[in-house]
């Protein structure tokens, strides 16, 4: 694998992660992460859509008039999302219920359009495909981390298997109900971003404003 291909695939997992660095795709990361199984389907769906949309956009990048490029990209993404959504309804009915509209909302997921416009429209097909897979993986890593934390602390289970026996079933763990509500996903993602940026200080953004010290004499 060439170094460029490796970079396209591996970079978005930590160094250029779409969720923690670019802070994209947060809505779905909040919504579907109450338990692990729907999150896994969501990851799979987003990775598939990102990879295939990138490949398709890259394939037509030389013939695509720039005046309609965004709407063409949206059309391709929307079609792929519908196909994925229909497949999940056909092959994983129970999970499709829990995911409800969120697979459909991949259409508006900034990660996918961001990669087709930012990467696939300027790069060859193979590389674009890998970039889509890489960004899907980057999203998946965060989603799986958040979902595992929330399901474990919120219900004491992982993928439905009991890990921490609940008080209600005679165990010792008293589930933290807040973990099953959307705000907890904010906290968990925030903690992850904090952790990643402490580990890799290069990801810390420069402050947009500096707060100046104001002296009494300035005001007067």
């Amino acid at each position, binding site marked *: 694998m060439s170094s460029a291909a490796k970079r396209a695939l591996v970079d978005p997992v930590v160094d250029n992660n779409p969720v923690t660095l670019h802070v994209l795709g947060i809505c779905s990361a909040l919504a579907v992460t109450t338990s692990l199984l729907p999150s896994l389907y969501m990851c799979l769906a987003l990775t598939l859509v990102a990879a295939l949309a990138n490949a398709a956009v890259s394939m037509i990048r030389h013939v695509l008039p*720039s005046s*309609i490029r965004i709407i*063409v990209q949206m059309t391709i993404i*929307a079609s792929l999302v519908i*196909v994925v959504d229909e*497949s999940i309804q056909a092959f994983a009915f129970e999970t499709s219920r829990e995911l409800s509209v969120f697979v459909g909302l991949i259409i508006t997921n900034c990660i996918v359009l961001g990669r087709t416009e930012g990467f696939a*429209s300027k*790069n060859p097909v193979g590389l674009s495909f890998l970039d889509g897979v890489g960004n899907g993986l980057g999203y998946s890593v965060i989603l799986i981390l958040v979902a595992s934390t929330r399901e474990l602390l919120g219900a004491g289970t992982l993928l439905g298997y009991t890990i921490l026996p609940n008080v209600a079933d005679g165990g010792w763990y008293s589930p933290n109900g807040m973990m099953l509500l959307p705000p907890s996903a904010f906290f968990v993602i925030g903690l992850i971003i904090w952790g990643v940026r402490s580990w890799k200080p290069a990801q810390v953004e420069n402050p947009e404003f500096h707060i100046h010290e104001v002296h009494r004499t300035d005001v007067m």
Partner: protein
Amino acid sequence: MSDPVKEPGPRTETVARTLLVAFLVSLLCSSLVASAAVLLKPRQVANALLDMRRNILDVAGLLQPESDVNELYEGIEPRVVDLATGAYVEDTDPESNPERALVYLVRRDGALSKIILPVSGYGLWSTLHGFLALQADGNTVADITFYAHGETPGLGDFISKPAWRELWRDKRLFDQSGNLKIEVVKGRVPAGDPLADYHVDGVSGATLTGNGVTKLLQHWLGEQGYGPYLRNLQRGDES
């Protein structure tokens, strides 16, 4: 690794070219979407049917984990009822006729043991779809389930919680003189309520969802709904 800065030549930017690309992309995408929808339809329909059967078995108290839903479902007898007279009729397509409705009968050793009525109606945000299971007397509630709704999570979604379903057991629909009395009350049913047999706890903060359940039951169990059919059952002429 990116291409040298792409300078779209004048040829890609003409109106004709733009329209052509737009047309081809739309054609390709729509055929992709259409074929996925058509090819996957049978599986989705089968899933929906299986899910409905599972819900019917669940409300009938027959659902067992690890066993085949379709096999268990063979014990359920769907019948079509003419709502105005309450009599059974033969009808292959009751869904398209608002005068007719389905009921599901559960028999034990040949005798009728439970009747399952599909019910639906508006809650606060959404249409609630559910099943009401009655004992063979046509008056005692065995169970109720709402399998599809869009009520507020954490408030109105109490209607699909097992603890709330439990409250319905052995409630009565009609009083001695045949008046429909079943009701989801606001908050808890007070101790010593003379109508405790007909009143079910609601959830404060989700009163409108509870009212929705009351209204839909009043509709479906009243004269416009299964009322005549249930009277027939209570008189004991189950055919």
